[in-house]
């Protein structure tokens, strides 16, 4: 395994339910996520893209197969070790409800460090906050922030602990196009300028256009891959997979 791969999955299978009603959400997936890249995972609803990300991030246990993140065998970890992994090696950005409402923006950003009882690197924090344009919002509560600002705070939180990988689950799903562009632009910059590795699940071709690489899933398998995609190329590949491109569902 070369050091350029930050996380990988081998023969990943995830089955929900049992017997005749069982659903194979992942059906033997092999992926390598490259260090210092923004990887997008795309696919139609039910293609298994979210399940793949949950398994990679240690939020869900695969039925079989293995996941290794930053050299750690995630798929074999106990809940206690997973908790520790989430604290230090992995960052998350969810679609919504990303922030703890009782904490200020700054407290939310430093929350993973607080949880891990690690000191805050003030320079790094300052860099992240400035890059995200949150400097004058740090004292605000989440309810006092716009949707875009909330997602930027979530990104800052994911990045401040310098995790091995940031997992973003439809990070712009609830945002208008301007805010979405800001957030996506930042995720890309975090990769290009800070050397961060980011994995993002999305169903939106524009979002995927910000990635270095796009993986396409269908029926629980990786069916295609694009490097340095454009929006048009993504739409074309999607169209080839599923027929005419879907709207925003």
């Amino acid at each position, binding site marked *: 395994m070369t050091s350029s791969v930050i996380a990988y999955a081998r023969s990943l299978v995830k089955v929900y339910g049992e017997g005749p009603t069982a659903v194979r959400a992942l059906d033997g997936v092999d992926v390598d996520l490259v260090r210092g890249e923004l990887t997008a995972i795309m696919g139609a609803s039910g293609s298994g893209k979210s399940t793949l990300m*949950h398994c990679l991030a240690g*939020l*869900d246990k695969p039925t079989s197969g293995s996941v290794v993140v930053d050299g750690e065998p995630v798929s074999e970890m106990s*809940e*206690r070790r997973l*908790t*520790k992994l*989430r*604290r*230090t090696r992995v*960052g*998350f950005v*969810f679609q*919504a*409800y*990303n*922030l*703890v*409402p*009782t*904490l200020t923006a700054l*407290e939310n950003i430093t*929350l*993973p460090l*607080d*949880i*891990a*009882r690690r000191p805050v690197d003030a320079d790094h924090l300052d860099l992240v906050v400035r890059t995200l344009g949150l400097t004058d919002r740090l004292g605000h509560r989440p*309810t006092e922030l716009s949707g875009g600002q909330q997602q930027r705070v979530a990104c800052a*939180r994911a990045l401040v602990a310098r995790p091995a990988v940031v997992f973003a689950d439809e990070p712009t799903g*609830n945002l208008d196009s301007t805010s979405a562009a800001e957030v996506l632009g930042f995720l890309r910059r975090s990769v290009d300028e800070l050397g961060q590795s980011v994995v993002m699940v999305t169903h939106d071709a524009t979002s995927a256009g910000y990635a270095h690489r796009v993986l396409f899933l269908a029926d629980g398998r990786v069916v295609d891959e694009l490097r340095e995609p454009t929006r048009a190329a993504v739409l074309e590949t999607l169209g080839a997979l599923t027929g005419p491109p879907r709207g925003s569902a």
Partner: protein
Amino acid sequence: MGRVALRGIRAHLVRFFLSVLAVALGVAFVAGTFALRTMLGSTFTDIVATTTLGDAYVRGAHEAGASTSGFGGVSRNLVPLDLVPTIEAVDGVERALPDLQGPAVLVGADGTAVQSTQAPSFAFGYDARDPALHLVAGRAPAAADEVALETATLASSGLALGDTTRVVLAGEIREVRVVGEVRLGSALAGATVVFVDTATAEALFAPDGEVASIGVYAADGVSQSDLVARLAPVVGADAQVVTGEQLRDETTAAIEQVLGFITTFLLVFAGISLFVGAFIIANTFSMWVRQRTRELALLRAVGASPLQVFTSIVLQAVVVGLVGAGVGVVAGLGLVVVLRRVLAGLGMQLTGRIPLDGFTVLVSVLIGTLVSVAAAAVPARRAALVPPVEALRDEVTVPERSLRRRAVVGIVLLVLGIGAVAWAMAAPGADAAGARLGYGAGAVVLGVLAVSPVLARAVLRVLGAVLLPLRPVGRLARGNVTRNPRRTANTAGALMIGMALVGASAVIASTAQASTSAIVSKEATADFVLRAPPSSSVPAQALDDVRALPDVRAADSFASAALRVDGSSTAVSGIDPAAVGRSIVVEDVAGSLASALAAGEIAVQRTAADDRGWALGDRVTLTGESGTRTARVGAIIDSPAFGVPVVVPADLLSDLVPAAQQVVSTVFVTVVAGAALDDVRAELTATVRPYVVVTVMDPEEFVSELADQVDQVLVILYALLGLSVVIAVLGIVNTLALSVIERTREIGLLRAVGLGRLQLASVITAESVLTAVFGTVVGLAVGVALASTLPTVFGDVGLRELAVPWSSLLAMLALAVVVGVLAAVGPGVRAARLAVLQAVSTD
């Protein structure tokens, strides 16, 4: 809509579990109280019905003081025994039986007094013609050294027929042999009953040839009213005749009155429990509504009217109330059944009737439902006002309503309350002061409850700061308890009420103890104190024996009785004039107690003089069972040691009340100069040992015994308040459990960014402890502050030394921490068990 409501409650039964439990506990208290009342009532009316069998009764025509024996009511002047032959000579009278009875102490097989659960102990004259008495075994007592025992008394005494033992009758100790067993028609509620022969009974209990009443039994065919009409002309002006029916009704009414007091007392605590329970219900429904905002908006969007939404929530409250009340009624009755078993085990036999009646069930169910509906009304109103557009919003944001209105209402109540309390403190002593203090205290408590959300934010920010070094647990926990101050305040409010009462009780108790101690050390100069337990007396013969000891200089008894003084029943103490200065030192306000008593005059307390308008030199009329006297007020005193308003010379009291009806619970003993106290104590102990019930104490022990009595009352109060504290703790569990459900998503997020299970459980525990400590601190502060005004307001009745039991209060605070930790166990485990992925993706 009804179906929606019922489905909602069935699908989320767990959420309402603690609300139902809260209603059930409160209602159980109410139902238990009523059932207890019914059971006690039927026990005592059974006793009346099976022991008061006469067709007519001849008794005194004039009322004396409140009765000190039997079932309460009023005592009357005595009637002469000579009337018996006169009555029996009347045509239509079959027989006339004088009421020969008095207090007794029976020594059981184990050498101790036979007594159960503080029930009284009597001796009766045994007359074979009395239809209430059934000789079961042996024979009737025929001589002064023979007794018969009532069946339950025989059983609990451990004696058998033929055994010899001792009894203390009318102050004299005597050796007797148990010759018979007598059954009365009903369970006697633990009373100890001894029968002696009629000649002995007359000598002991009617030494002056007078008795309280004479029971008359009619010949066949003579009605009760006929009998009364025939007897009335022969009994004289100082006696009256009533039908048996009337006497039984009067006695029953007196019993009902006493039970009414007990019931009211218990219902106050049941009411507190229900009030506290209402907080749980209100919190549950308001969280339920908050969480279902979108669903409610959807209902509105598809055409449900606000009234329908309101009704659906209220319907759920009705279900909670009905289920809770149903469980509560059963639990309450169960409690009484258990209580009856326990009491029976202690020798207190109560009636076997199952104390279930429609009234109890109806009232209990009604109360449970009303409390539930009232508590849910505010959340239901809020639910009804949810705009349909909320259904379309992506993220449901319930704006936190302003606390200004509550703050304003609370501050107004607090100002009024504090004003009333200050008024009471400024003008103490008067009857109105007590009422002002009561209303003021009520307003203060309600005011604090109203401002508590505002208070919560401020206080919890400070309390929470202690936890901040525990990052991130402290910050998260503090954020959670301050994010919805209304909810935190309601949760803590339940505990606040209980703790305010606990704090006030603790302060009152320690103030009473400190005051007693101060009074004894200031006013009592005796070397030893002889004490008889409640509902018995130090026997006169024991007193004579003690006085006969060479080392004893004096033994001064404090006899008490209820007399009619200037028309109203008043507690009176009788002491030997020589005791003043010898056994007791009293502050004279006007005149001198010593010279007044020596001159046959009476002394009154300053407060009584104020209330009743007595001045030095006034003539006062005193009426007792044996007669009426007028006496001059020769002194006005200020002495909390005499807990009674009027003090008279011992001779005067004996003229008015037969010795058997006087209660002597305390005797002060002074020793001759130079006697070794340890030796005297040994002599005294040996002297009173045969009388079984009398204990010898030095003044310190006397103080601690009085303190123990206060502690016993405190324990009862704590036990009664305990339920409301338990319900309050359930309220904390409830709020935590529901907020874990409500915050599922946030908990998932925290776990996703690495919060460990233990850390999560710690956050919830910290929230719980903060809530419990907040409620306790504010509650205790309010209770202690209000109780601290008592010495100023009620200094006149003996509460003079304010004592705040800091160590008990600190213990309460520590208890709050423990309670907080315990309350968090369930919700904490539940939260820690949430699967991260599911939690993150919950809606």
